[in-house]
Every structure is written in structure tokens, then in C-alpha cells.
């Protein structure tokens, strides 16, 4: 639905990314592009070469003596607290005494050039008392390693009773791989010392307030001494939520110690080995169902490789359980997590935050039911969708009240001609042959809100200058998603001014304090509302000024495009602002928002952690070569729900990009540790993200234009960052169908993720062997 607005950049309309012109001309500045003041030094991390061991001796003489080296930092040189744990667990030292994963940073070198620092970092002479290590969740549990945080249990109904009444039951295990973020801009921090205790840190972080907190903590100074700035990131995807803190802290410590600006930028290998990734999971499921394919009971256990510290693993593994129902009602359910400590880098946030690992478990169970009963998996999906009364409670006891999955799936099945194409593919496969095809239509339902309730707050700062130009600042960070553009649209709409009147500025802890990470897809939901609150305050002052000055009632003052109607008179916006300024009206406001109506009791496993759900569905078709395991994606159709889109063109971009990233997670992106605990896929030469040639040959993406958020979100829109990531599961399931064809669909192929060509081939061979 498009209303005609004479404003440029109005809300609900396509609007190009606010930095688009700068991006195509190379004039958008990232942290590494900030001009370095004379005397800038460069830091580099020196890392451990064992997987688990106590540092017995560390001789850094050769490092210090190397050409160009100015200083070396070790744990002893941390002036404040040597810890970076984002949840205050004190388990994430900047530099440890005991090494807990291969490649863990143990010191930093500061030199005149990055090259000099990088070379010197190789020269340390360190001896260790080696300890045993375990790098994956199962062996770590067997070795008696603890959990990094308390596990979660969600339970509803009576699982044993549900299992007893169901005629069928399948128990199996699935492993789901992790994922490296592979943001094109790697980690980077640039610290500039100031007077007294002050330091300014420019860094590529999704969570400036937390970086500020960590830097202050490490320096032993109050938060007000530290300013963290970020204009934009070259991609984040969760990888820069907590993982930037290490670099920010090291740069700041060095800058204060040496009174010189210090920049740190790891190379890609170090970026991949020393920062966390998506958690890989081992999932044990037990699903009980009847002849119609209706699920009666689910018992699921989710063990995750968390790495050596807790980082964000608690909320990540919680979210896996929150999404282990995907769009399906489980009459009786028990879900448990095991956030397992391992001797690997500490895993962290990544788009979906554990949710995708939950969703894929739900989809696997659907597949199991379908293959066991010889049904079309889509039929089983529909049979189990959340419904009304009695079939609308999630495993965490939240009622699903905004369910539109049935309509989304029906519309997509129609537009993608799912049934006809499936019939045609079944026929193709029935002829035998080396090339087999598969098609799958998978849904997603994704809960929106931070599950840590206190994170669901945001601030914004809006100034109207006396020439009528507007300055916008908010707590969210721009990593390409177009957040700044959307918030400026919200402001343009509120003031009824053209988009170009609004200047979007860098995110800085100086302007908006105590912000939450730009994560959980919440960026525009939270910051948009905060900006709107600021605008409403200024507008209220303008209205009362206008009413008083022109002698009209307040309801006779209306904001029109670039003007204000006051009684019978129409005054240009600039003129009103100028007059308001002369009359000493306050033209600046700090806005604030907190999400209403959400609560969560973790101990009880009950509450309403999510404000609303976003929905979507994808239908993918693939062809596999049963002799080599290689495959291609022939076509993908997507219908995705973003409520009333704030900016359809940006939202489509999010959907397209998230889908491909989700597909990469489940197909080509494989993280691989060797027996020594070394990550061997630590650069794009060995770790394969999707390329332009990997995307579906035919790719149709549509937004569900009829959808509108039932909750009072910003302009009735819905979050878009994470939910479409899970649309990539359709590719995985289509591969599964193609594999299943070699055994006439009688066996669920039980592909593990990622379904690399090698895994596809192994599955084909296994099924052929019967």
C-alpha cells in the first residue's frame, strides 16, 4: 500500500541507503580510513601456539628488540581489570596465564608500523606446561569440562504421556556446524589519548557502550573518561557485538601508556582464529507422532561448542531452545541446553543468535516424520503449524497471537508452483540417472526482542538547528543494514520534512549513553521509537509555541510537508523554527524507548520474552550430481514478512543477503579443527562463503505487502535482520530430498550441516548401500 507523499524519503517508501553515493565513489570512511595523526603507532597480537597449557615462561626480549618495536603489553601491563567478559563472569582475560585455545592472544606488540608489529609478534619465546584439551562439545563433556553458564530447560505438558499415546517415535542425532562471520571489514580499533584519563576509541563495533565499558574496566577509569565512536562497519553480523572489545582495550591501553594514537588491525587469519563464531551444535531429538504426521511430543537436547569462556553463550543457547519449535505446536515438549566449555575460541553472536540452530532441529524432525510416513514434508509442516486455541502455546508458555504462517506458506506455494514442480521433480528422479533434483518449502517464525529484558531500551538525540536543519543521533550502529536511513525516514515523517534536511551522524557514547548492542534485529524497532520520542517532544513544544503565538488551539497546528499549518495560515518549516528559536523554544531533545509488555522468568522457563514474531517462507530447488556430490541451486522463491516495511528496497536487500548467508552456513562454510585443536579453515582461501556464481539461478524475492505488525512497533514494521537467515534451510532440505531420491524417499537422509559436496556424496553412498 503506497500513499502519495510529496516528501522525499518518507517512511514506507523506497529510499536509497544514506551512504550509497559515498560507497560507490569510495568516499565512505571506515575506521581504517580515518587519517592517522603523526606519530600513530600500530599494535599486533602475539598468540599462543598450544591449545591448553599454563604459561611457564614468556621471554619477549627478541620481540622488544625487533626493528620498529616501541613497546610490549602483557597481562601485567593492564592497568585496570584483566577481563573482557560481557556478562561479568570474569572468565575472559585480555591476556591469560593459562592458555585455553590455540591462537589465544597472550601479549601485544606496539611498533611504528603494522608490518613491524606483526613480524615482531612472531618472535616470542614461550614455554608451557601442557594440559589436555577437548575441542568439541561431546569430547569436552566426556572429558568432564564444565558448562560455561547455567543450562536452560523449557518444558510444557507431559512428554512421557505424549510419547505413550503416539504410534510412532524417532530418536536421532544431528550435528550442525558453526560459521565465521567473514565481514569484509575485519576487526579494527584506533585509540587516541586525551587529557587526564580520557581516551577516544574509534572502532568497528556493534556495541559501543559495551566497548566503552570494557575499555574503562581495563584502564581502571570511570566510563565518562572513555568515548567510543563508530560511523559505520564493513559488516558485523554479530561478530562485532562483543568480539571487538579485545581490540578496543588493547589499543586504548597502549595509547594511554605511550601517549600516542594506537591502531590495531589483525590480519584475516588472526581475525578468524582469535575471535568467536557461530556456535556449532550436537542435537539429540526424540519426536513422537501419529499416522497423520501430527507431532505429539518432542524431547530435544542441544549441546553447543561454546569455547573457553561464556561470552554470549548463555543467551545464544537459550535462543536455540526458544526456536526449536520454529512454527510448530508441540503438545508435549521438553527442551534442554548444554552450553559446553571447550578448548576453542569463545563462540559468540551471529545473525540469528542460536535461533537458526533451533529452527533447523524443528525442520529435521518434520523431515523425519515425512519420510517415515511417506508424506510430502510440506503437508507435515502444515499439519503441525501453530493454530488457534489449544494449539498456540510455545514451549516457553508464550501465546502465539500474530500467526500468519499459514497464509505466507500458501501464497508462496502458489506463486512458486510448489506442487506442480514437486510432481515434475519426482518424475524426473523416478527415471534414475546421475543428476537428482530436490525441492523444499520451509517456513520460519522468529521471535523479536532481546531475551535479556533490560537490553530492550534505546535512546536518541535530535537537534533542530535554527536554520531548520536537523541532526540525528541514536544508539544503533550502521553495519550496512540501512538503520540510519530508516531512522532518518522516521524523523522525516515525524517532522514532515524532506529526508535531505536530516544529517545522520556517527554513533558515539558521548551523545547517547548506555545503549544496547545493535543486534537481535532490534535496531530500527528500538532506535526508531526513541528517535520518534525525541521528535514528539520537540514537536509538542513547537505546537504550543505556535498555538500561543498565533492564538489558535493546539489541534489547529498541523505538520504538513515542509510546512506547518497554524490555524488558517501555512508557515514554512524554516520560518517556524526561526521564530521558535527567537522566542527561546528548546529545539533539542533526548528520546527514549523501552519495549512494553515483555517479561521472562528464566528459572521457571516461562514468560513473554518476545514482543512479536516475524514470519517468512522459502522454496528452493536444487540439482545434485550423485557421482560427485556437487550441486547447484536452480531456483529460490521467497515470501517474507516485515510488517509494514519502513523501506521496502532496503528490506528486500536484507532478505536476499540473509538468505544467501544462511545458505552458506548450511552448504559450503565449514569450520574445521585438527586434533591439535588448531582451526585449519582460518582464511577465505580455505573457508568458502557463497560467491556470485553460487546464488540461485532464479531468485524471486517478495515481501508480504499485506502484513502489518499487530503490536505498536515503529510504523507497524517488523524487524528484518535475522529472520530471513533461516530461509536458507530450504536449500538444505531440498538437497536432502535429492539425496533421499536414491533410496526412493523411504529413508530420511539425515544430512549433517554444512551439507558440503563431500557430505552429500557420503549420504548418497550410504543410502544406496541401504
Amino acid at each position, binding site marked *: 500500500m503506497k500513499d502519495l507523499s510529496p516528501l522525499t524519503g518518507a517512511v514506507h517508501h523506497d529510499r536509497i541507503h544514506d*551512504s550509497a553515493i559515498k560507497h560507490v565513489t569510495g568516499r565512505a570512511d*571506515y575506521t581504517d580510513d580515518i587519517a592517522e595523526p603523526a606519530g600513530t603507532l600500530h599494535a599486533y597480537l602475539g598468540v599462543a601456539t598450544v591449545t591448553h597449557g599454563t604459561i611457564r615462561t614468556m621471554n619477549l626480549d627478541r620481540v622488544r628488540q625487533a626493528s620498529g618495536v616501541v613497546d610490549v603489553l602483557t597481562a601485567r601491563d593492564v592497568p585496570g581489570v584483566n577481563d573482557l567478559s560481557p556478562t561479568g563472569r570474569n572468565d575472559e582475560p585480555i591476556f591469560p596465564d593459562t592458555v585455553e585455545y590455540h591462537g589465544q592472544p597472550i601479549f601485544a606488540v606496539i611498533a611504528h608500523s603494522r608490518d613491524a608489529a606483526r613480524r615482531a609478534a612472531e618472535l616470542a619465546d614461550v614455554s608451557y606446561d601442557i594440559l589436555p584439551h577437548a575441542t568439541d562439545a561431546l569430547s569436552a563433556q566426556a572429558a568432564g569440562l564444565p558448562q560455561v553458564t547455567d543450562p536452560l530447560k523449557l518444558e510444557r505438558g507431559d512428554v512421557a504421556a505424549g510419547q505413550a499415546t503416539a504410534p510412532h517415535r524417532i530418536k536421532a542425532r544431528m550435528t550442525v556446524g558453526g560459521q565465521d562471520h567473514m*565481514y569484509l*571489514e575485519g576487526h579494527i580499533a584506533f585509540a587516541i589519548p586525551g587529557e587526564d584519563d580520557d581516551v577516544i576509541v574509534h572502532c568497528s563495533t556493534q556495541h559501543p557502550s559495551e566497548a566503552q565499558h570494557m575499555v574503562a574496566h581495563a584502564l581502571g577509569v570511570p566510563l565518562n573518561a572513555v568515548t567510543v565512536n563508530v560511523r*559505520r562497519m564493513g559488516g558485523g553480523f554479530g561478530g562485532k557485538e562483543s568480539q571487538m572489545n579485545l581490540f578496543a582495550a588493547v589499543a586504548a591501553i597502549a595509547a594511554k601508556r605511550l601517549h600516542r594514537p594506537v591502531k590495531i588491525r589483525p590480519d584475516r587469519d588472526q581475525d578468524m582464529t582469535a575471535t568467536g563464531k557461530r556456535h556449532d551444535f550436537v542435537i539429540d531429538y526424540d519426536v513422537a507422532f501419529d499416522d497423520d504426521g501430527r507431532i505429539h511430543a518432542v524431547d530435544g537436547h542441544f549441546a553447543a561448542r561454546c569455547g573457553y569462556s561464556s561470552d554470549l553463550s548463555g543467551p545464544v543457547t537459550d535462543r536455540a531452545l526458544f526456536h526449536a519449535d520454529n512454527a510448530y505446536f508441540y503438545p508435549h515438549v521438553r527442551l534442554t541446553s548444554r552450553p559446553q566449555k571447550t578448548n576453542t575460541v569463545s563462540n559468540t553472536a551471529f545473525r540469528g543468535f542460536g535461533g537458526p540452530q533451533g529452527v533447523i532441529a524443528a525442520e529435521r524432525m518434520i523431515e523425519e516424520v515425512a519420510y517415515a510416513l511417506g508424506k510430502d514434508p510440506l503437508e507435515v509442516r502444515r499439519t503441525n503449524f501453530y493454530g488457534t486455541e489449544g494449539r498456540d502455546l510455545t514451549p516457553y508458555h508464550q501465546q502465539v497471537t500474530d500467526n500468519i504462517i499459514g497464509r505466507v506458506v500458501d501464497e508462496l506455494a502458489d506463486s512458486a508452483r510448489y506442487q506442480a514442480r514437486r510432481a515434475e521433480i519426482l518424475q524426473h528422479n523416478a527415471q534414475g540417472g546421475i543428476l537428482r533434483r530436490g525441492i523444499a518449502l520451509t517456513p520460519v517464525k522468529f521471535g523479536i526482542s532481546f531475551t535479556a529484558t533490560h537490553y530492550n531500551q534505546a535512546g536518541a538525540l535530535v537537534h533542530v538547528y535554527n536554520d531548520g536543519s536537523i541532526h540525528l543521533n541514536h544508539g544503533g550502529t550502521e553495519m550496512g543494514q540501512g538503520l540510519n536511513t530508516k531512522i532518518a525516514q522516521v524523523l522525516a515523517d515525524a517532522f514532515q520534512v524532506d529526508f535531505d534536511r536530516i544529517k545522520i551522524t556517527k554513533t558515539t557514547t558521548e551523545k547517547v549513553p548506555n545503549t544496547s548492542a545493535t543486534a537481535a534485529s532490534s535496531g530500527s524497532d528500538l532506535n526508531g521509537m526513541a528517535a520518534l520520542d525525541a521528535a514528539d517532544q520537540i514537536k509538542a513544544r513547537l505546537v504550543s509555541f505556535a498555538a500561543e503565538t498565533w492564538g489558535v488551539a493546539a489541534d489547529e497546528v498541523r505538520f504538513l510537508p515542509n510546512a506547518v499549518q497554524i490555524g488558517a495560515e501555512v508557515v514554512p518549516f524554516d520560518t517556524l523554527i526561526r521564530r521558535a528559536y527567537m522566542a527561546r523554544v528548546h529545539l533539542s531533545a533526548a528520546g527514549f524507548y523501552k519495549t512494553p509488555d515483555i517479561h521472562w522468568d528464566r528459572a521457571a522457563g516461562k514468560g513473554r520474552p518476545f514482543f512479536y514474531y516475524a514470519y517468512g517462507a522459502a522454496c528452493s530447488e536444487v540439482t545434485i550430481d550423485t557421482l560427485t556430490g556437487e550441486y547447484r541451486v536452480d531456483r529460490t522463491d521467497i515470501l517474507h514478512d516485515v510488517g509494514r516495511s519502513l523501506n521496502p528496497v532496503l528490506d528486500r536487500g536484507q532478505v*536476499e543477503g540473509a538468505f544467501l548467508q544462511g545458505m552458506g552456513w548450511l552448504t559450503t562454510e565449514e569450520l574445521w579443527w585438527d586434533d591439535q585443536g588448531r582451526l585449519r579453515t582460518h582464511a577465505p582461501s580455505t573457508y568458502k562463503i*557463497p560467491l*556470485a556464481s553460487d546464488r540461485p539461478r532464479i*531468485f524471486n524475492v517478495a515481501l508480504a505487502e499485506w502484513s502489518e505488525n499487530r503490536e505498536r512497533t515503529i510504523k507497524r514494521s517488523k524487524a528484518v535482520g535475522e529472520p530471513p537467515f533461516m530461509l536458507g534451510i530450504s536449500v538444505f532440505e531440498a538437497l536432502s530430498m535429492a539425496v533421499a531420491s536414491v533410496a526412493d524417499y523411504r529413508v530420511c537422509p539425515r544430512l549433517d550441516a554444512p551439507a558440503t559436496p563431500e557430505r552429500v556424496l557420503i549420504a548418497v553412498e550410504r543410502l544406496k548401500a541401504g
Partner: protein
Amino acid sequence: MTDMFRDKIDISLSVNGEPVEARVPAGQHLIDFLRLDQSLTGAHASCEHGVCGACTIRVDGQAVRGCLMLAAQADGADVWTIEGLTDRAEITDLQDAFVARNALQCGFCTPGMLVAAEDLLSRNSQPSREEIREHLSGNYCRCTGYEAIVDAVELVARSRAKGGTA
């Protein structure tokens, strides 16, 4: 690294049409020379080992990875970066199409992607979608899913074939 390898080397080259004389460390990569010494930060350093294409620039008419070429090797070369191509309005239609089709999100891949796309179009004025996808497969984009990028390049190819600008 031996001291000999650390030696400085004098080079003279043309950068964005302007003559440049410089003394560079023998091991310095061209991308670092451009970014650090010439303040041309449009091309980006990402993987720094020749895989992602974020550092793609034009050297002597060819698309080249700035992280794989040494500055010293550019002695006598004609080097163009996104800044220079913009100033001489050589790829305006491609840039406009990228903007119009929203073929960018974080933008980190964009300058390299544009240079690679222009490289294709300069050699094959009517590439198929398949050819565009293959040609751009040396340039990573982690944000967009490539759909919009391929669309934008196709749009420009068609419009150039018709003798217009996009």
C-alpha cells in the same frame, strides 16, 4: 625478512592520471601504498591474500588485486582507483545503477566490485547473466546476496549496448 628485502625502492608511476614519485619499502603492497601514502582509501584491504577482491584496482588497463601486487612492481604503471574513475566520470552509469538497484549494504566490497564489473564490461559489452556471475565470483560480498549487484551490471550492459547510459 632479510634486510635487503626491507630496502626502499624508488618508483615513478601514474595514479589516477597524476604522476607520482615515491620511495617505498620493497615489501609494501600496492593497496597499502595507495591507502596509506596516497590517502586513496576507496579500495579496501580485507583478506589481504588475493581472495576477496575488496582491493581491486586498475593497473595498466587490467583489474588487479592491490594486495597481491607490490608497490615496487607498479613502477612505470598507470594505476586507477575508484576515486580517479569517479572523477573522470568513467563508470558513472555503473555507479548510478548500483545506487538505484541497492547493490550495496555495508559498501566495503563496492569499490572493488565496481572496478571488476567495469573490467568485464570493457571486454565483453554484452555479457549474459551467467557471465556476469562468473566474472564477479572473484569478488566477495557478505551482505547483499549478489542479486542486486548482478542486476545492476546487467542493466548497464544492456543500456551501453543500446548506446546510452544507464
